[in-house]
């Protein structure tokens, strides 16, 4: 993917850009708001990673300017102001995802890739079948190894996010935000327990091991 990173802190920008390039992405880096705004107008990017506080033009202004031109490019906002109301403001003004500093690089990469997939794919499929698992979103059905599995609404949502991002890492916080409609800090890693319950329901065989744990980060459905 072609990415634009607008971040004024040199160390952080280099670190993030390096990590994204290692995953095979092309990264343009801008160090202040004015350059960043220029770059958004000049070239098309798949995802923009935007720091909220920038010299020159402020991140929120860039966000609003981009959205004012009806540019639908997905934007991930990074900020040191990590509180819920800042998040809400960022998302309301047209951001697609929000990540507070400090974050792990893998978390950022996972989120950027998920954003790119979500917007790049266009129409989302009605059915997905990977690793012995089959999901039919229209009928709300899940089959593992040919057998129908009864899932609760939450379990279905967890599996849906994992399946739609099959082959890619989905972090715990991405699951938390995607499935539970509340933004909060669960203190303990209860998301893990929800996933392990889901695994149990999927059964003993290959279908259960379809969901891999990525240590220290989250989960991935094998392809």
């Amino acid at each position, binding site marked *: 993917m072609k990415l634009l990173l607008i971040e004024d802190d040199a160390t952080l920008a280099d670190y993030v850009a390096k990590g994204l390039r290692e995953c095979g992405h092309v990264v343009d880096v801008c160090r202040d708001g004015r350059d960043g705004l220029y770059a958004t107008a000049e070239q098309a990017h798949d995802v923009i990673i935007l720091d909220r506080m920038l010299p020159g033009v402020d991140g929120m202004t860039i966000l609003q300017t981009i959205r004012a031109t009806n540019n639908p490019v997905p934007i991930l906002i990074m900020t040191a102001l990590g509180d*819920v109301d800042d998040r809400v403001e960022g998302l309301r003004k047209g951001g697609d995802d929000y990540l507070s500093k400090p974050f792990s690089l893998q978390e950022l990469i996972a989120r950027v890739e998920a954003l790119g997939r979500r917007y790049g794919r266009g129409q989302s499929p009605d059915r997905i079948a990977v690793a012995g698992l089959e999901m039919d979103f229209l009928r709300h059905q899940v089959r593992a190894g040919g057998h129908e599995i009864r899932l609760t609404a939450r379990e279905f949502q967890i599996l849906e996010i994992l399946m739609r991002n099959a082959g890619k890492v989905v972090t715990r916080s991405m699951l938390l935000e995607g499935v539970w409609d509340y*933004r909060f800090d669960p*203190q*303990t890693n*209860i998301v893990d327990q929800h996933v392990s319950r889901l695994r149990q329901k999927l059964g003993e065989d290959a279908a259960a091991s379809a969901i891999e744990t990525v240590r*220290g980060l989250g989960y991935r459905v094998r392809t």
Partner: protein
Amino acid sequence: MRLGSSLVIRLISALIAVTFLAAASLLAVIFFFSVQRPMNEMRAEIQAEAAQLQSIYLRQGKAGLEAALIARRRLPSANLPFDAFLERDGSLLTGNLPGWPRTRRGDWATIEADVYRDGQEDDREALSRDLLLPDGRRLIVGRDVDVIADRQELMAEAALWGSLSVLLFALLGGYWISKITAARLDAVSNTARAVMKGDLGVRVPVKGSANDFDQLGMSLNAMLDRNEELVASLARVSDNIAHELRTPLARLRAALDGSSSEVDIQLDQINAARVEAERLQQIFDALLRIARLDTGRHLINRDTIQLDALVNDAVDFYAPEAESRRQSLNATVVHCVISGDRNLIFQAVANLLDNALKFAPDGGEVRAYLDVDGAMVRLSICDNGPGVDEEFRHKLAERFFRAPGSEAVAGTGLGLSLANAIVEAHNGTLSFAGGPGAFAAVMRLPMG
């Protein structure tokens, strides 16, 4: 505060003005009843007499009038009658006035009518009606009003001396009031200065008379109490922060130090370091949120929240956790709606559930009851864990407080503080009740 300050000057001026006005209005009332009204009555009486005498003259002529005048002089009266009946050339026909103005100056005149009695001069003043009769003769009829006139003079003099004494008393009163005020205000401002210098224990002296100054003093003292309490809790918190943040930092360093000596970094060490970093971040986030909520810097969204649905969601979220320890987790709810920030309220409920599940034993029980209590909704999260001794309960919402005996249970010591800060930011209360085997955290929030 000193006497020269503008407040004191204004106070005294106002006092003088008010006292003067009061004295002047009192004087005016006395003047009206003792001078103005008797004078008017007298004037009316003289006018009636003059009219009567004129009609006698018209009917009975000069001789008749002279007889009437002489008869009038003889009638006993509190106010001596005076008269002068003058020929066209100004010569006196009859009369007892010692003198009169040569020419008429109007219908009314006040004429000096000194009377000699036993060789003594007796000052009299006659209020007189000066009539020009139709045939050109002139009739002056009057009565002695010296008593009333004297009163008038007396009152002028009294007004002068009264003013002086009013002025004196107003000055004295003003001085006295400002001295009392200044003393009380000085006490307040001295207290404020002492507190500013860092002596947080100083209080405004209160005399117990329940007057406005005492009320002010008590309010200020309540404020100072609260301040002192906050400063003390701040000091405790900073100590705790230092301790709580240093521990994970030390472990983080240990993990990294351990790995740097080896050529191949152990995955375990990296994961250990990551866990500690996450814990640090969690503590920071929670502390910042509590601080922002406590100081009112966190804007509270006012969504309409269906609390029953929210509680069910939270219970649903924690179900796997309860299951893994064979605990039963249930909610009994009634439909109710509050206004507030749904993310924050969910966080508060989640923290209470998390806490209850941590302290309930394996195979134990956690129940959430949601009901309506007057104008408040009440959410009680009950567990059958060991509970908390009464003496520590009020400290549960303090940052980093861990009840004795709970050291083995994982946690940052911030979960209940955050829940408390959220509930208070929504004008609600969080309290704790019950003992071992039946402990409850009770959250009350205003309805609607």
